[in-house]
């Protein structure tokens, strides 16, 4: 059997929108097939067709050589297709074992629950994944990577032959990513076919055997990533069967994705940093675990904050934005000591914070884009009693032009925009406040490559205009490419302050707390 899954000329439209056009894709046993594409390129629709959530308008779908009709999620499940979503779809109030059992045990209202075998099953599955998670842990208490492990355990337990992973590493830190990649390699060694969706190109090169790029609902090419298959126990000799051309480099993939050349990944800094805008002196917050952080951010400078998940980066941002006020140490803004006890005070002091998890709290999804943008500047924009909707609309149009926000108009609800554009709206809101200090928390998480480099250019431009930028990111290339200086946090404390052009290895070893990783700046 050569192919696990074969899609031939699949098309799908939603109303007037053609989500997929003549997309063909095949997946072989023991293969990791990466799926790349900007947001809105049709990846999710393709996944929904493979998992049976949508029926294609035309085209054929064959699973293990057999054509399938009347495809439903239940059929997909029984045919050994499992999907690990970016946001794990688990029941937070149930335990790990119960969650796994819900997916794997046969459904019958009157079947007696065998708690022991349920727990044993969960333990053995998790152990196969090299995890020591307790099967009795409530899922709500687990971290994101642990929840993903549970999802993967479900797929394993179901004996899935086709596993789809939708941006599994988007919210993971480096070591967690590496563990997950190890698991994917194990799956591949067992002959499972993995469709792997990611925005991180380096992951494609680290993990994938082949990569298919989608753009505007069409497949613009499939490339071979590794010259030779390294799997054992897979009878096919890939080199002879695979007709796909090998991929040249990252730039080629980016070109395929965006359909144009991206000259350089990160904008270069010009101009020298000016006065010190923000100065932290031994800032601690017992409640949120920030310990004795001393740090300067100058005007015109992007200071990157690296660290593992839970290293206290977002917490430090919370301290600066008054979400969890500092209980010792000093915060100086333009050399004036300040106390920041609430977001309102932070805003009044000229601090802006674009939070992590944009989908939930960066913009208000139901509100019109224009309303989102002016939310923090009502007092300045509307000096009188009444709102001036015309002025508001003009401001929104200006930002749309300046930040290249793609939307039907200022009235479009923020939720109708793509992820990258939502992030730009969140940015616009804070730029409108003309802040002295801009704190960005994972500014490009879940944003497609094109929008990502636009946001990078924008951040650099703001810094060049004299803004002080503090940028939290788990995306190591982003930290390395964007930052003038890199602060590495570990356990709530500043572990190292590294200069521009530091090596990834140096940052990582500081984040992991290894010695010799660089000096802590005063």
């Amino acid at each position, binding site marked *: 059997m050569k192919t696990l899954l074969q899609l031939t000329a699949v098309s799908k439209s939603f*109303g007037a929108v053609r989500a997929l056009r003549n997309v063909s894709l095949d997946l072989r046993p023991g293969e990791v097939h990466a799926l790349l594409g900007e947001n809105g390129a049709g990846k999710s629709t393709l996944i929904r067709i493979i998992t049976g959530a949508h029926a294609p308008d035309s085209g054929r779908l064959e699973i293990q050589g057999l054509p399938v009709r009347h495809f439903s999620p239940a059929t997909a499940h029984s045919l050994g297709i499992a999907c690990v979503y970016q946001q794990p779809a688990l029941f937070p109030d149930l335990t790990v074992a119960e969650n796994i059992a819900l997916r794997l045990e046969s459904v019958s209202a009157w079947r007696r629950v065998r708690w022991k075998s349920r727990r044993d099953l969960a333990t053995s599955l998790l152990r196969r994944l090299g995890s020591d998670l307790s099967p009795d842990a409530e899922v709500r208490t687990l971290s994101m990577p642990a929840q993903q492990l549970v999802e993967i355990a479900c797929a394993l337990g179901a004996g899935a032959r086709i596993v789809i992973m939708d941006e599994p590493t988007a919210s993971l830190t480096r070591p967690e990513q590496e563990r997950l990649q190890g698991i994917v390699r194990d799956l591949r060694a067992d002959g499972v076919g993995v469709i792997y969706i990611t925005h991180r190109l380096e992951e494609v090169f680290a993990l994938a055997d082949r990569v298919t790029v989608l753009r505007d609902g069409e497949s613009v090419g499939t490339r071979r990533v590794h010259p030779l298959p390294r799997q054992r126990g897979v009878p096919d000799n890939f080199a002879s069967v695979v007709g796909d051309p090998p991929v040249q480099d990252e730039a080629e993939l980016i070109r395929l994705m965006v359909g144009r050349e991206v000259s350089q990944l990160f904008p270069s800094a010009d101009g020298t940093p000016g006065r010190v805008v923000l100065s932290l002196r031994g800032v601690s917050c017992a409640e949120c675990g920030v310990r004795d952080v001393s740090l300067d951010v100058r005007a015109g400078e992007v200071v990157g904050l690296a660290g593992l998940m839970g290293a206290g980066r977002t917490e430090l941002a919370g301290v600066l934005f008054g*979400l969890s006020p500092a209980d010792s140490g000093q915060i100086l803004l333009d050399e004036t000591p300040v106390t920041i006890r609430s977001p309102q005070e932070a805003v009044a002091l000229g601090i802006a914070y674009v939070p992590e998890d944009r989908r939930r709290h960066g913009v208000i999804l139901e509100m019109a884009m224009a309303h989102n943008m002016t939310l923090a500047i009502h007092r300045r924009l509307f000096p009188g009693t009444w709102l001036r909707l015309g002025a508001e609309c003009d401001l929104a149009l200006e930002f749309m032009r300046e930040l290249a926000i793609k939307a*039907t108009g200022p009235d*479009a609800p923020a*939720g109708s925009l793509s992820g990258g554009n939502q992030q730009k709206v969140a940015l616009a809101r804070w730029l409108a406040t003309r802040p002295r200090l801009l704190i960005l928390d994972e500014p490009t998480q879940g944003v497609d490559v094109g929008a990502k480099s636009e946001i990078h250019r924008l951040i650099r431009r703001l810094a060049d205009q004299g803004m002080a930028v503090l940028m939290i990111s788990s995306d190591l290339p982003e930290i390395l490419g964007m930052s003038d200086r890199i602060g590495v946090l570990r356990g709530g404390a500043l572990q190292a302050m590294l200069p521009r052009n530091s090596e990834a290895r140096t940052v990582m070893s500081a984040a992991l707390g290894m010695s010799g990783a660089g000096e802590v700046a005063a």
Partner: protein
Amino acid sequence: MSTSGRTRAEAGAKAGRGRGLRFSREWTVTGALLLLLGFMAFTAPGFFEPQPLLSRLTAAAPRLVVTCGLVLVMLCRQIDISVGSLFAICSVAAGLLIAASVPFPLAVAAAVGLGALGGAVNGTLVAGLRLPSIVVTLATMVTGREALRLARQGVFVNLPDGVQWFGLSMVSGQLVVCGVALAVLTGLALALRFLSAGRWVYAAGSDAEAARLAGLHPRLTTLATFVLLGALTGVAAILNLVQSPQVDPASGRLLELEAIAAAVVGGVAVSGGRGSLWGVFAGFLLLTCISPALTHLGVKPYWDKAIQGGIILLAVVADGLGRRKGNR
């Protein structure tokens, strides 16, 4: 206006959250209302005779005032089911004061103040202690109603002469009552659209955490809507009080449900952040006109509530279907 409405609807269709429906709901309800009125104009022109019509609208005016307040609370993703009890308390209190020959304006102030106080209690518990509003207001509803029963034992309050219709002629009094209600409606509708505070309400109801991160005060906003609803309940109590020579301590029963029904039919989302007072007004008129329309058509009055229930159900189902279609 229509252009912007259309782009919104288009964007909404893409947003996949049933927004197209959100902005057309005002139109569908208005359309249904016009259809009903048009139908009545042909089949039973007697429906439009000014005097009975004015009387009916006057009787419903207090409910409109309460509905307007409740819409604010619902936009904040909260609910208040204690408005009926509070309405009765304010009515009785104002009645007793007037009966004790306290000047009328003072009695009005007392009713409004008492209402605001009741709203503040609810709001503090909900916004301050972050308790679920349905439970909090269930508790205050039962407590208020029972306390009133204990205190009054069901005895009506007799009002002195010259209080009914503010001492004016009946028609003038009715016009004043309807005028006040319409002023409240218009004022709040304008405030929601053209005041910063209006934005805060939508922001708090759509995503309180995002509003907080934008430097707003969503909890204060929520508290303020409860206080405003309480005060408006006091206003409504006065508008009701002037319509009869007595105050019934059991008045305001089911008021909360009627108000919620009008809001839901008018397109206010129970999940907060969505809806407009224009739609609510249309929904309110639609539900209010059903009963007299049936009378004029010679349909047995038992059908009244069933049809109202059907309309509410239709509104909720339409919302649900719209959302499902949008989720594609």
